[in-house]
């Protein structure tokens, strides 16, 4: 089962199973990762599943498409490797992904 490590706002690590085909956000919610709020349930209509892809993983995961890019404009503290985790679909190449939760309150 592929894994994603979320680093929350307190610096704590949460290693979660995220099956291929689920979004990284769904993995965070199922794993109870604090700070991924996903208010719109993954419709790319809010910005509360915002997280920062670890530098080492950025080129593997890639950047946002047009809609996600626009929605990221609503996010707090957007940075170079910001993504909306509801828009990252888990695949085998992402096994071991490290991602830092943004301030989504």
């Amino acid at each position, binding site marked *: 089962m592929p894994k994603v490590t979320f680093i929350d706002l307190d610096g704590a690590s949460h290693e979660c199973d995220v099956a291929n085909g*689920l979004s990284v956000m*769904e993995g965070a*919610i*199922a794993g*109870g990762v604090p700070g991924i*709020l*996903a*208010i*719109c*349930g*993954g*419709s790319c*209509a809010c910005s509360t599943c915002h997280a920062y892809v670890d530098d080492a993983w950025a080129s593997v995961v890639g950047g946002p498409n*047009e*809609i996600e*890019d*626009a*929605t990221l*404009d*609503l996010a707090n503290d957007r940075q170079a490797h910001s993504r909306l985790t509801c828009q990252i679909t888990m695949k085998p190449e992402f096994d071991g992904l490290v991602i830092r939760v943004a301030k989504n*309150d």
Partner: protein
Amino acid sequence: MTRHVIVGAGQAGLQVVEALRRDGYDDELVLVGAETWLPYQRPPLSKKFLQGETTAERLLFRPQDFYVKQRVDTRLGVAASALDTAAHRLTLSDGSTVDYDGLVLTTGARVRRLTMPGADDERVCYLRGLDDAARLKARLESAERVVILGAGFIGLEVAAVARKAGRQVTVVEAQSRVLQRVVAPTVSSFFEALHRGHGVELRLDARLARLEPTPEALAVVLDDGSVLAADLLLVGIGVEPEVAVAEAAGIHCAGGIVVDEFARTSAPDVLAAGDCTCHRNLRYPAPHRIESVQNAVDQGKVAAATLLGKLDGYAAVPWFWSDQYDVKLHMVGLSGGHDSLITRGVPEAGAFSVFYRAGERVIAVDSINRPAEHMAARKLIAAGGRCDPDRLADTAVDLKTILDS
């Protein structure tokens, strides 16, 4: 030990739970829901779920263990049946009672149903909750001829799904254009062309006269005498706010449970939030009812704050979205009372925005396949909506700079 009770386990109800626990409320929390499901997302019911791209389990906002860890006493499959606001006592449909310190009604809305003869035919479907959606999805699998009553968001989204699945689709709408309640003629025309372009038959200015069920088909007879043969009739003619318990309890209701900008009803210690409310928003002069994820979430936050003694007046900017085929419609603000329109971009090109103005101010914006313009519009309206109208129409100007004008 304090006990707060939330009646209605939907988006607004969950938001109240989340906000209370996040803001440090550690005492008792009871969440009552008439459905047997934990709180789940409704928007995908007319989109991904209907298309078989997601499952019921994936629609839940939070897994079961969230409610356990957050110590939420969930009473599912149980409705509120009576409320004694003086005694602070809620009676549930299983006969049990729950005493409360604070109560939040997040009871949502129920679909308007047909009552004419034939309306209980099994080919007649509605779409509000998961159970409806599962039933509709199953019917759709074997239905060749789909008739949809109502060209609002539910009707149009289901039309898109059914058409993409190769079904014969006819949409019947009583008004003279689709989405008449909420969008300008330009936007209606765009969606009419979109659906017709995909092969949907649109019957505007047409009303249902009667239903004639036969084994071969459900005959949908319109007021002009024409007959549509249906294997499935989806009725999407709007909802009524779920106010029965509140009304019986003597709480003031008028087009919804009436609440002020702090989510307070006319009864002490009883609040309400979401689709069931007719609410005051500090941005607007008159209370109104809004059916949206945004309203459920933002009002839910206000209700939680009020319960914790922090009065934080509701002033969120309303926004909404709809997905049909490859088109994403985003809406922000409320367009009622507009006196001019500015179109940015060319509808025929498949991407454009329409700005609704009242005098000098932009009060609402509809964006079709222009998410960046929608996000800029949210900021514009939040800031009061004043800007140079020439810059709105000029596609050479980046809309993100519009607040500087």
